[in-house]
């Protein structure tokens, strides 16, 4: 039952491209009008210097039924947000766009009017019904020349129109600027939004369950339903598994609990417990190696919080730290050759780095700091939570400069940073609106977006 509903939820969420089993099928739409002339990509605003200006026209609903009209509006609006998110293009405001008559056809576009807005590129699209759902067509036109820079057609379910926008945005960014966008990624986190209470002897304890949403917070989907604490979720690099820390019951009435790492195979509903925990062997804060073959985690199996690495099936456990103080919260370098973690061996909690064989342990920055997250090329940075006052702020350390910069502003407390897979964005938690919510921000500290609003939401982790 749970499995079935989870699977259905996933299928609905993935919407457009019927979730066949494992690898989420990358949509392979037939290129419609040729996107490139010969081998030469038509680039929007390539000769303008600075950021090209892009206009997104309202998408055309090719029939008047409410579903199609709503889908057309959603696809256009979300596409605007998705492209704006990567800031490769200057997005011409919707007020300005509203001064131009809405397009009614993809083939008859009054380019003169768009030239008046100084648009370098124009995105136009349409949505129509077909037997299986909807067909979305999109074109991006180089306004000065009228040449088509990007043109595709997608078809699928009408259940989740946002997925079309995300796919268009990622493919457009890839084709135009060689960028791996994040519009089709997900963010997983733990949430008490159900306001369920733990069973047990102590009153007023809210359960937390694992959820994930689209990168922008839309389409929340529930992964766990065990009515206990389920926290610190982590996507496997192939996006098939979420590893997390679960508080499992012990004792005849479950009044004791212990922490253990659980792997949830989200497309099949199966679970695994590779660390085989017990009250004497507790395991938490799992972190996947970049190739998905190993998991680093924290355990008290030897009587103290230490860092361990194991193969994802639980075999080959290796102890990485050996110090009577706290060692906790490992994360991997993008190459998988190093581990960053938090230790208070000098009395103040700080981030340390070591090689995966345990050698070369050294501290990263000389300040009280927590929860490292590591981005690869081209940025090669570590984001972390630094004690900056009564609370924390997110900082980013650059290996290139050897220096850190602060990207949050001391409002509320800001914790648990995690990089997007392309290293350009950070998700983190903040108490700035009262409860703890998840926000994303660009790595330069701009473009703050709140992506959760219901209950408290913690421990974000970004899919690939």
């Amino acid at each position: 039952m749970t499995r079935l509903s989870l699977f259905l939820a996933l299928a609905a969420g993935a919407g457009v491209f019927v979730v066949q089993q494992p690898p989420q099928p990358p949509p392979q739409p037939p290129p419609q009008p040729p996107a490139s002339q010969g081998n030469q990509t038509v680039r929007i605003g390539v000769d303008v210097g600075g950021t090209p200006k892009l206009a997104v026209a309202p998408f055309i609903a090719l029939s008047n039924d409410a579903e199609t009209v709503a889908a057309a509006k959603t696809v256009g609006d979300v596409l605007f947000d998705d492209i704006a998110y990567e800031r490769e293009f200057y997005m011409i405001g919707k007020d300005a766009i509203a001064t131009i008559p809405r397009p009614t056809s993809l083939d008859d576009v009054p380019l003169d009017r768009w030239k008046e807005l100084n648009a370098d590129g124009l995105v136009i699209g349409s949505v129509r019904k077909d037997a299986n759902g909807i067909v979305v067509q999109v074109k991006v036109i180089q306004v000065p020349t009228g040449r088509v820079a990007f043109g595709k057609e997608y078809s699928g379910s009408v259940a989740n129109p946002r997925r079309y926008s995300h796919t268009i945005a990622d493919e457009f960014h890839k084709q135009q600027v060689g960028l791996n966008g994040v519009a089709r990624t997900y963010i997983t986190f733990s949430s008490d939004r159900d306001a369920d209470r733990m069973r047990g002897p102590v009153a007023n304890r809210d359960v937390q369950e694992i959820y994930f949403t689209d990168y922008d917070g839309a389409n929340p989907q529930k992964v766990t339903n065990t009515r206990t604490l389920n926290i610190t979720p982590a996507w496997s690099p192939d996006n098939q598994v979420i590893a997390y820390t679960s508080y499992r019951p012990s004792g005849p009435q479950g009044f004791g609990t212990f922490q253990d790492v659980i792997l949830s195979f989200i497309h099949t509903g199966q679970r695994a417990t590779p660390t085989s925990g017990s009250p004497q062997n507790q395991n938490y804060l799992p972190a996947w190696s970049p190739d998905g073959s190993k998991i680093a985690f924290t355990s008290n199996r030897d009587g103290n919080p230490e860092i361990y690495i194991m193969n994802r099936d639980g075999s080959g456990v290796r102890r990485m730290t050996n110090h009577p103080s706290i060692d906790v919260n490992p994360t991997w370098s993008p190459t998988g050759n190093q581990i960053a973690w938090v230790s208070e061996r000098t009395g103040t909690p700080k981030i340390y780095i070591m090689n995966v064989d345990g050698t070369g342990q050294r501290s990263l920055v000389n300040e009280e700091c927590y929860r490292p997250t590591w981005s690869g090329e081209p940025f090669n940075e570590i984001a972390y939570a630094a004690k900056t006052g009564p609370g924390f702020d997110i900082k980013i350390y650059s290996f290139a400069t050897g220096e850190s910069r602060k990207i949050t502003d001391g409002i509320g407390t800001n914790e648990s940073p995690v990089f997007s897979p392309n290293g350009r964005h950070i998700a983190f938690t903040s108490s700035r609106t009262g409860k703890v919510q998840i926000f994303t921000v660009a790595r330069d500290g701009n473009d703050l977006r709140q992506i959760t609003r219901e209950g408290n939401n913690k421990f974000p982790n970004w899919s690939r």
Partner: protein
Amino acid sequence: MTKMRYAAVVLGLLAAAGCGGKKPPVAKPLPPTTTTSTPPPPTPAPPQPVPDTTPVPPEPRISEDPLVSSDLDAINKNSPFQPVFYALDSYEVDAAGQQVLTADAAILKKYPTWVITIEGHCDERGTAEYNLALGEKRALAAKTYLVSLGIPADRLRTVSYGKEFPFDPGHDEGAWKNNRRAHFVVTSK
């Protein structure tokens, strides 16, 4: 089974009263709510004007110990155990904490079948991930001290809730102080 345990406890009490000599027989940590209608023990035979020591110690009243008969839920809702409190960012059991643990150890000795889970908790000022380890260190420190007082380690489980389950939802010094603790839950009896 329960009866046997009950009998064992009563025997234990009698033994304590009999041989303890100097110690008053068992200070009851809990309000003697339900006193059964057992008649007061008949006073021993009248003669014997032995003046000095009292030959018959005041016999412990055979009362129903609510902690013996209650279920886990009831025990935990009115727990006999006191929590240990910690300083900011610390997992050291201070003098006050040692006193509390000494009293808690006495309860554990009185109910030798009980297994408890020591929950480590933190205030909201640390980061959520780090606090999972900090709470664990607090629970482990309390456990270590109880073991040093003679409680078998296999009766003491630990778990850390970090800052996920604050006892006081406030955001001030008073709340923080209250939330940095090792809290005891009877897991089986």
